[in-house]
């Protein structure tokens, strides 16, 4: 416990978390500070490319094994399963109607890549290695949750999903870039990394800081606008669901025999909630659901929770369990 607190305290004063806090403060104080949309998108492209590439290089170095395939399958199952857990929890502790509950639930099966990146960076600071292919697991977990959410709503009914939407989800920019960079990293290996490491390795953490500044701004503006919509029970869901998800992730990681680092990342993935791919799909397929609810919960409540408390918690628990 003291360990967790020390870790959390350490984490709290990392530049990354402080930058997020600065953005949050600026937004809530109604400062006009903002990162241009194009720049924010550029930063996220950089992060996806770098994290994917490094994952691929690491797989190239350690070789492909059965666990990779099993981890992918586990990720897909978890992504499809967790919305059902989330839906049940939402329906029992909050006032949300079926439609909005399903929409929110979809977000919690899917993942937040920035939370994943933040966890990676905490692992690195602590000198803990992780399976490079966790990046591929992250990509695999983006979409299945969307199907679960739509299934929760339209059991029997049909027509929520069309071929276009299907393609948009599977080939959304983040997935293609992450998987593409992963493959390129795998193909070019250490040698490829050497050529571009002063672009994707050294400045990585600094770029992440600026990106989290933007996340803080966006989360803060979302909270200012959508916060009133959330009852206490919804907020409770937003902080309860991550540890529940993480417990599923922990179980899967233990079953798969992942390393300590891999376990933390798997827990982080299951604990995190999407705020890019899933909202976009929901706007198309469930336009009647209120975006302010699911976005504010995912980005305004769960994201900060994971960033500040969740990640150190998952690390502490995984260490304890792995007898570390």
């Amino acid at each position, binding site marked *: 416990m003291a360990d967790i607190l020390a870790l959390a305290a350490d984490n709290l004063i990392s530049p990354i978390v402080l930058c997020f806090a600065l953005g949050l403060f600026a*937004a809530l104080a109604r400062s006009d500070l*903002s990162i*241009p*949309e194009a720049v*924010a*998108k550029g930063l996220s492209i950089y992060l996806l490319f770098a994290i994917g590439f490094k994952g691929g290089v690491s797989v190239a170095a350690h070789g492909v094994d059965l666990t990779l395939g099993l981890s992918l399958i586990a990720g897909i199952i978890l992504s499809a399963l967790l919305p059902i857990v989330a839906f049940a929890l939402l329906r029992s502790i909050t006032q949300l109607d079926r439609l909005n509950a399903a929409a929110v639930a979809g977000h919690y099966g899917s993942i937040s890549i920035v939370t994943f990146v933040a966890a990676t960076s905490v692992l690195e600071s602590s000198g803990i290695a992780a399976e490079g292919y966790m990046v591929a697991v992250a990509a695999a977990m983006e979409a299945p949750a969307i199907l679960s959410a739509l299934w929760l709503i339209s059991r029997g009914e049909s027509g929520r999903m069309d071929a*276009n939407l299907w393609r948009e989800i599977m080939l959304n920019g983040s997935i293609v870039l992450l998987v593409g960079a992963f493959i390129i990293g795998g193909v070019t290996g250490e040698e490829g990394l050497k050529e571009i490491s002063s672009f994707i390795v050294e400045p990585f953490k600094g770029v992440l800081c600026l990106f989290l500044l933007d996340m803080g701004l*966006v*989360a803060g*503006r*979302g909270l200012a*606008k*959508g916060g009133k919509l959330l009852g206490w029970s919804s907020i409770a869901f937003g902080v309860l669901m991550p540890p529940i998800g993480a417990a599923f992730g922990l179980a899967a990681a233990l079953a798969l025999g992942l390393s300590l680092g891999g376990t933390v990342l798997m827990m982080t993935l299951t604990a995190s909630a999407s*705020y*890019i791919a899933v*909202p*976009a799909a929901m*706007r*198309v397929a469930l*336009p*009647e659901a209120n*975006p*302010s609810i699911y*976005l*504010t919960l995912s*980005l*305004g409540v769960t994201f900060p929770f994971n960033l500040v408390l969740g990640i150190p918690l998952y690390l502490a628990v995984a260490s304890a369990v792995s007898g570390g």
Partner: protein
Amino acid sequence: MQTHTAKRVEITIEKIMQSRLTDALVGAGVHGYTILPVFGGSGRSGEWSRSGQISRAEGMVQVICIVREERLDALLTAAFKVVEKHIGIVNITDCEVLRAERF
């Protein structure tokens, strides 16, 4: 100069619906349109702005179609099917155009 009467239809809709809308327009025989970016706005669903938006998925666009009067109804029917359940607004103005062969 010689001009011809036409209708100017302005459809403000979520970016995510843009290609669905233009596909529907093309399906209704409307091949001419111009798409403007939108910074922000406010309506029954509340206020949003490009810089303050909680997700990059939330943006809107404005699709402008100049059509001959006789095509207006087909256009509106096609557009309506797409926008029906979605937020946004559709307005129509009378206008004149140069170069009628172009639209």
